[in-house]
């Protein structure tokens, strides 16, 4: 187990290093000079030069990368070109808000997706199964901005049940979380349904039934527990993605998370901020994967490291 952890941590660091490297390089492949973007068209060459010096942009790319990387090792993500503030502090403000929304979505996904998936599996090929599969397809295909706006219009404006956008407590998080969840819970439904169907056909579920256990015990204790591995895998990826920021949803609802940060940063070629967001998102995914692997071993005694 210990050697596994060490090996795993090593590869996590290698992964992150390459993500940093690739993201950094991509920033330089994108056309446009950040100093020109900061300065605006009227600025004199001296202004552009001063800005390049201020942000190190006049140095060769490998040197810039070295500076960035050395600072990164000290936990310093640099200064935003757009706001002149430390990217660390901006992320410290924005990331908890993304986590708040992300976990709310995650909670809803599990709350909606898992029981629905189980129900669809039990009702396999029956009317309700088809209804669920079709509505999950619709949920996945409908554009997020459209769902978000409809929810805002109906629930927020017409019915005045919940606030129209903005950041805040539970009442503020419900609509954006539902907006994302209506689409992403569908994935849980499919994953749970498929793995449940597989498990429901196994001999040990028949054994459980032969013991006279009630349907709910058979499904929850025997079938669901052993079908949970694909769900954990999926949920881990989902959670990682959610932590990377919900760009569209944050934009619609005015949710001040890292997705919004990313949008303004990209519009502005604000490389340190873009890098910061990419890095946080990457770390979230890597950690989620790691946690998933640990959970595997906890739920399935056959897995050990």
């Amino acid at each position, binding site marked *: 187990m210990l050697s596994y952890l060490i090996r795993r941590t090593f590869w996590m660091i290698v992964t992150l290093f390459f993500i940093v490297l690739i993201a950094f390089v991509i920033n330089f492949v994108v056309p446009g000079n950040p100093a020109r973007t900061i300065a605006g068209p009227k600025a*004199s060459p001296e202004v552009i030069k001063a800005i390049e010096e*201020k942000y190190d942009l006049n140095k060769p790319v490998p040197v810039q990368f070295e500076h960035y990387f050395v600072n990164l090792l000290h936990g310093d993500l640099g200064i935003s070109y757009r706001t*002149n503030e430390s990217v660390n502090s901006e992320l410290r403000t924005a990331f908890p808000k993304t986590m708040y929304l992300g976990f709310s979505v995650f909670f809803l996904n599990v709350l909606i997706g898992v029981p629905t998936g189980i129900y669809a599996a039990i009702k396999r090929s029956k009317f309700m199964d088809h209804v669920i599969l079709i509505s999950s397809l619709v949920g996945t295909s409908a554009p997020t901005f459209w769902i978000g706006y409809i929810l805002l219009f109906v629930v927020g404006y017409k019915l005045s049940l919940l606030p*129209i956008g903005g950041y805040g407590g539970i009442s503020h998080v419900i609509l954006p979380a539902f907006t994302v969840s209506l689409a992403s819970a569908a994935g849980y439904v499919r994953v749970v349904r498929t793995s449940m169907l597989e498990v429901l056909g196994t001999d040990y579920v028949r054994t459980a039934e032969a013991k006279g256990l009630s349907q709910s015990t058979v499904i929850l204790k025997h079938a669901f527990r052993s079908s949970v591995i694909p769900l954990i895998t999926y949920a881990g990826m989902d959670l990682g993605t959610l932590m990377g920021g919900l760009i569209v949803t944050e*934009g619609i609802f*005015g949710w001040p998370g890292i997705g919004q940060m990313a949008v303004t940063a990209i519009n502005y070629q604000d490389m340190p901020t873009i890098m910061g967001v990419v890095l946080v998102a990457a770390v979230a995914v890597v950690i989620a994967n790691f946690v998933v692997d640990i959970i595997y071993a906890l739920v399935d005694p056959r897995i050990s490291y």
Partner: protein
Amino acid sequence: MKKLGAKKSAVAGVLAASMLIVSALSGCGQTNTPQTQQQSASSNATPQMGGVLRTWKQYDPKSLDPTDCGDTDSYDIQQNIYDGLVMWDKSGKEIVPDLAAAMPTITNGGKTYTFQLRKDVTFQNGDPFTAADVVYSFNREASKSIASPGESYFSMIKGMDDVFTGKAKTVSGVVEKGKYTVEFDLTQPTRTFVDVLAMPYAFIVDKKYTSALPNQAALSLHPIGTGPFTFKEWKKGQDIELVRNPHYYLKDAQGRQLPYMAGITWTLGYGNSVAYLKFKDKKQDFSLIPTSDYVSTLNDPNMKNDITSLVENDYFYIGGNIKKAPWNKKPVRQAMEYAINKDALVKLYNKRIVAAWSILPPNMPGYQENPSGYKYDPAKAKELLKKAGYTNGLPGVHPMVYVKNSIRDVLAANIQAQLAAVGIKITLDGVPFPKYLDEVTKGKEDMVYGGWMQDYPDPDDFLNILFNTNQIPSNNNVGYSNPTVDKQLNQLATVTDLQKAIPGYQAVEKQILDDAAIVPLYHDKEAYLIQPWVHNSQLHPVYPYFYYWTMWIDQKAEQAATKG
């Protein structure tokens, strides 16, 4: 001046370019009246004190530090926190004293400006305002380590660029001549110097407070100025709160202390569709009108009176790169002048723009409706192409670069079809703003569909910046070069009285259009929603939106409306 990457319209993206202000000096005798409309019939009622304006922005402003005030959103907020030496009056036509007690005395052949300062002004933290703060603020703007994008607006001040490039420690041209007297020395007479002083880059900060900050970037998060509203809080991505500055020096005609409102709150982060819903729900006092709701809003009896609109001092154009064939042939360029049905564009965009046959917009001093007498005439366009030797239309396919957004995509496609009809084939190259800047400021493009927005209402800001040979390629993107025009522009810039310069600018504008340097397309017509209980809410021709310190809120009307 800024290149229009995007602007504060319903289709706006982020304005990354620099921003500005301006000057239509009063008494210039210009004949056009600003086309401002205001919905509120009760504006004549006595202003009431109190009430908070609940307004909105899609994006956080870039910065609340004047040296970094390059975008509309930052300017909109900073104008309430800070003051400059001079400011625009409510009509947007005249520059009036702000922190200065009077307009400057101009001596030394237009090269020395001397300001007497107000003695009754304190910063919002209680620090007294003196000449030292002015000197400090300009040195700060010139500082190399701050690297303000606006520094070059002040290049006419002696020593400004030397400090910026590290050749000098202090700006020699800004001199404290007494506790309340400041002198500016210019390298050459520059009429637009006063306009530049009204720009946000020239806002005055508190020397004592600012110089003691742990780092200069901290000013953006904790701004202190002398303006009508005091900064209270900025929750990133959520809201910015300003509250009334009770010690603001300005009073209204009745001697009442300005501003009237108790505060301004901008909520941040969501787009115009949501803002529009919140406006309709009366949770917000201001909103853009989403494109999809524009026509229905105009026709909605409950909302049409909430609309306030203004033709902007901007212009959009298309042009071929004159440094490249076939655009180097004048008949080809002239053919384009006749090829575009601008009314079709206006109709496509629900009349949110007005057709342009000249470069200077209607609210700009020196405006002429159609100096070169062009009109939509596709037959004439074909004839001109023949004259240039292209009987079967222009050879090749020409990519047209522009800043992509949903509206410009539609307009560009229409332009493409119109040009194709006369035999000019183009492809559309809609790109993000940074890429656009990278192409056009290096003169790499074949064709451009671009825009320009005033820094201040002076023809120099459009004609000199966009068409002087010395601006190729950074701002004169189409590479237009006419020695006669250059000579006139250089001379006109030094004429201290704008009124005297206007005939000259009008001649220059006609020459540029006769040469068919570009094809003017349209000017934006901004339209916003403002709740009926908010008074004095005319859009300002120079400031990004409003003249906040004379706005007031009928709180009874507001309560009645929001309760119902």
